[in-house]
């Protein structure tokens, strides 16, 4: 719950009076503020600079140093103030966090000093508000890079006890670690170059037979080129297999871009070996040879600039998409116009609109081949408009892409970006957890049976115990949610339990065995009694199925031993014991308790007499131990 909103909790609780006439059940007792004192100013002395704030302001975040009792360690008795020997400038933003609920990162602050202050005061950096978060993350990344670079310089001697596999992988990833790796690196680079040059030279016409036209070298020196190709592919295959062997996660390696390029580079050769010289497939075979040009992409392992270019194109996908889209729109418009403008003229090359596409593209990119030229006056006018607009449309997204490239190149992204993505996910996950914390906190405290202390008319120790675990604010908020539950006679559960409960009610189509039970219970009490019958009857049929269901299920046991309520919502979820569900377990003092039991409940716990059927052998769950207290045992999954 946000800090500022805590001030509105009294209003929300007062507004709860609107539910009262609608509710059918009595409301739980409100938590009282035993040691209620007037809100007082406290003085925080940080290295001589005095800050003052209300005590309530600091209590908003009980899991930080200033909000918890940890600050008592810093209390100075003589001056009656809290003294912290820390940086007063950073403390300003920390105190503002308590006041406004937002944590800001000042730009002039050094990142590591700020981190230390946050760690001291128990504040996690993930809650820095969005306005300052980007800045914080960028500087943090720079800092870690700097630290890593320092580490790398000192990391000349390799750590001992690396297996052969790890050594190989390290050699592959970073060629500068050993001479062997460097040699390997240069050899593969050399062979990639050889392979590419071979592919190119293959098609050059070299020397003609006297009575024939020029034939390309590839057909003249077939064996030589074949040997060269084989050698290169051998080297590439060996390299690929070695990388595959050395990779720490083979599956991840096989999915990476570089390995796919490797595979695509050597595949045409093997396919060519396998295929025979069939006339039909030779066309496809020729197409495959085109893929050999992919070998040039293997250079990207050797050149960082190439990788960055590829990454830039990927990250500028939206700009490129926009460029493509706007170009397409303009092409279609202008092609249509040109077609209709040139329609009348004889011997016009603009035979159809798709034919005019070619003219439009050539004109808009200012190529102007001149193979298609408008002849009419209108055609010429539209043609000139087309070329002018082409310049504009293409010039617009290009600077964006260029600036992207330079930014990425300068920041040296590479794997750091991938790492940052993971941290971002972790941050979002943490924030989501803290936001969901308020909803799960209520369910959590219910499960821990803290509500039972609220319903008791106060014994002192339990009250203090309550204070230790939840703050007053939280207990008031939980009381509010509890009132809502009572008003609607339904309970909050989390998704998993809801699904199971839904499943169970959906399976119930059996007639009830003891109609008297269901008739005496109230509106919602029938659900549970039906479930017991379902257990009994489903015993034979779906033994293990319901077993696991019941094991995982939590249900609330409301035991009312009171005179007041005619509406007796005694719900008990049983294990496969086939006794009646309606027996009540009364506490001797006659107070209301809420407890949550999990199944199976060992028979010694409650006063239900169960002489006959012992619980069936239950391999899945060990029986829960009992403390033998009056309260029905609380156990949660």
């Amino acid at each position, binding site marked *: *719950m946000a800090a*500022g*909103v805590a*001030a*509105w*909790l*009294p*209003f*929300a*609780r*007062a*507004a*709860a*009076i*609107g539910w*009262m*006439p*609608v*509710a*059918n*059940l*009595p*409301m739980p007792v*409100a938590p009282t*503020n035993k040691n209620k004192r007037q*809100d007082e100013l406290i003085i925080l002395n940080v290295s001589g600079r005095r800050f003052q704030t209300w005590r309530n302001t600091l209590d908003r975040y009980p899991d930080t140093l200033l909000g918890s009792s940890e600050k008592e360690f810093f209390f100075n008795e003589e001056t009656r103030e809290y003294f912290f020997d820390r940086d007063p400038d950073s403390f300003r933003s920390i105190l503002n966090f308590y006041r406004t609920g937002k944590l800001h990162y000042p730009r002039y602050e050094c990142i590591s000093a700020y981190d230390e202050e946050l760690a001291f005061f128990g504040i996690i950096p993930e809650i820095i508000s969005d306005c300052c978060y980007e800045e914080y993350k960028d500087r943090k990344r720079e800092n870690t890079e700097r630290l890593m670079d320092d580490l790398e310089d000192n990391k000349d001697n390799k750590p001992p006890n690396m297996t052969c596999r790890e050594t190989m992988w390290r050699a592959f990833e970073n060629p500068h670690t050993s001479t062997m790796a460097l040699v390997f690196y240069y050899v593969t680079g050399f062979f990639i170059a050889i392979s590419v040059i071979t592919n190119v030279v293959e098609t050059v016409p070299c020397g003609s037979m006297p009575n024939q036209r020029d034939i390309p070298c590839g057909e003249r020196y077939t064996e030589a080129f074949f040997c060269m190709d084989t050698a290169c592919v051998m080297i590439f295959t060996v390299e690929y297999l070695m990388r595959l062997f050395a990779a720490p996660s083979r599956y991840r390696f096989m999915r990476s871009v570089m390995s796919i390029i490797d595979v695509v580079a050597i595949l045409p050769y093997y396919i060519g070996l396998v295929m025979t010289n069939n006339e039909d497939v030779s066309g496809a075979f020729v197409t495959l040879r085109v893929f050999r040009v992919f070998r040039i992409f293997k250079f990207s392992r050797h050149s960082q600039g190439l990788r960055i270019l590829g990454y830039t194109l990927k990250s500028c996908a939206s700009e490129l998409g926009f460029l493509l889209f706007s170009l397409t729109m303009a092409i279609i418009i202008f092609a249509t116009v040109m077609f*209709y*403008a*040139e*329609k*009348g*003229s*004889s011997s016009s090359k603009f035979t159809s609109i798709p034919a005019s596409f070619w003219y439009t593209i050539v004109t808009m990119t200012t190529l102007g081949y001149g193979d298609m030229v408008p002849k*009419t*006056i*209108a*055609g010429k*006018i*539209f043609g000139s408009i087309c070329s002018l607009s082409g310049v504009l449309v293409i010039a617009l997204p290009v600077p964006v892409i260029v600036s992207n490239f330079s930014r990425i190149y300068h920041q040296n992204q590479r794997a750091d970006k991938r790492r940052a993505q993971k941290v971002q996910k972790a941050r979002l996950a943490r924030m989501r957890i803290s936001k*969901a914390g*308020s909803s799960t906190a209520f369910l959590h405290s219910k499960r821990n049976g803290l509500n039972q202390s609220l319903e008791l008319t106060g014994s002192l120790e339990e009250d203090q115990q309550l204070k230790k675990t939840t703050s007053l604010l939280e207990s008031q*908020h939980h009381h*509010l*949610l509890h*009132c*809502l539950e009572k008003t*609607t006679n*339904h*309970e*909050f*559960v989390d*998704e998993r*339990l*809801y699904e199971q*409960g839904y499943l169970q*009610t959906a399976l119930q189509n059996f007639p009830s065995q003891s109609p008297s039970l269901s008739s005496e219970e109230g*509106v*919602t009490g029938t*659900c549970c009694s039906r479930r017991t019958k379902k257990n009994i009857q489903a015993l034979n049929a779906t033994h293990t199925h319901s077993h696991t269901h019941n094991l995982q299920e939590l249900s*609330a046991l409301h035991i009312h031993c009171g005179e007041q309520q005619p509406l007796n919502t005694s719900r008990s979820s049983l294990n496969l014991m086939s006794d009646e569900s309606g027996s009540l377990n009364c506490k001797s003092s006659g107070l209301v308790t809420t407890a949550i039991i999990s199944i199976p409940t060992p028979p010694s716990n409650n006063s239900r007499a169960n002489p006959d059927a012992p619980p069936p052998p239950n391999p899945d769950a060990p029986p829960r131990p009992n403390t033998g207290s009056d309260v029905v045992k609380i156990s949660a999954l």
Partner: protein
Amino acid sequence: MEEGEGEGLQTLAIVLLLCGALKLLHTLGLISTEDRVCDDLELSVVCHRPEALDLLEAQSNFNRKELQVLYRGFKNECPSGVVNEETFKQIYSQFFPHGDASTYAHYLFNAFDSSQSGSIKFEDFITALSILLRGTTTEKLQWTFNLYDINKDGYINKEEMTDIVKAIYDMMGRFTYPALKTDTTKQHVDAFFQKMDKNRDGVVTLDEFILSCQEDENIMRSLQLFENVI
């Protein structure tokens, strides 16, 4: 000039004519291309200062210190001094993260905003809180009746009650135990009318409401529940 030339020139002429017409309409103001975002800025500048502390103290059942604490919280969340419905819904929804509290917050807003001005000032806030926390049971019941009576006609009929109960159930969210059925709301409303509607005429008047509530011990007790909230 060939025939085609004529056609081409005709096309050109038509296009130029269209552009001219559009430009003319634009200058005449019949077509506008700018977005009207500037209007929204005016609302946020509205600021409101509450009455003097003494006056508020006389009007409500709070003492000075309580009013100070309340105002500090109010001002912290709404620096401009007024709460509009959106902010109100957001604030109220923070307390009920499981479900959707916006419908009920809407009804609450209408109940708080006694002057139906569309925004709650601090005085409205204090008036309502004064009744809810420090008022007599009759006043509290009157306020609650006012809350349920959505159209403020003096009667609560079944539709209004159904809306209110549905809004309350919406706050519970989807994941409840036992699961919500389609007629849960209807059953609840029927039970309510069973209790409240004495003369069985299908509507509940203020007197019936107060009378029925006073007969029910649970309700009387729970009205006293939030005495010590401040």
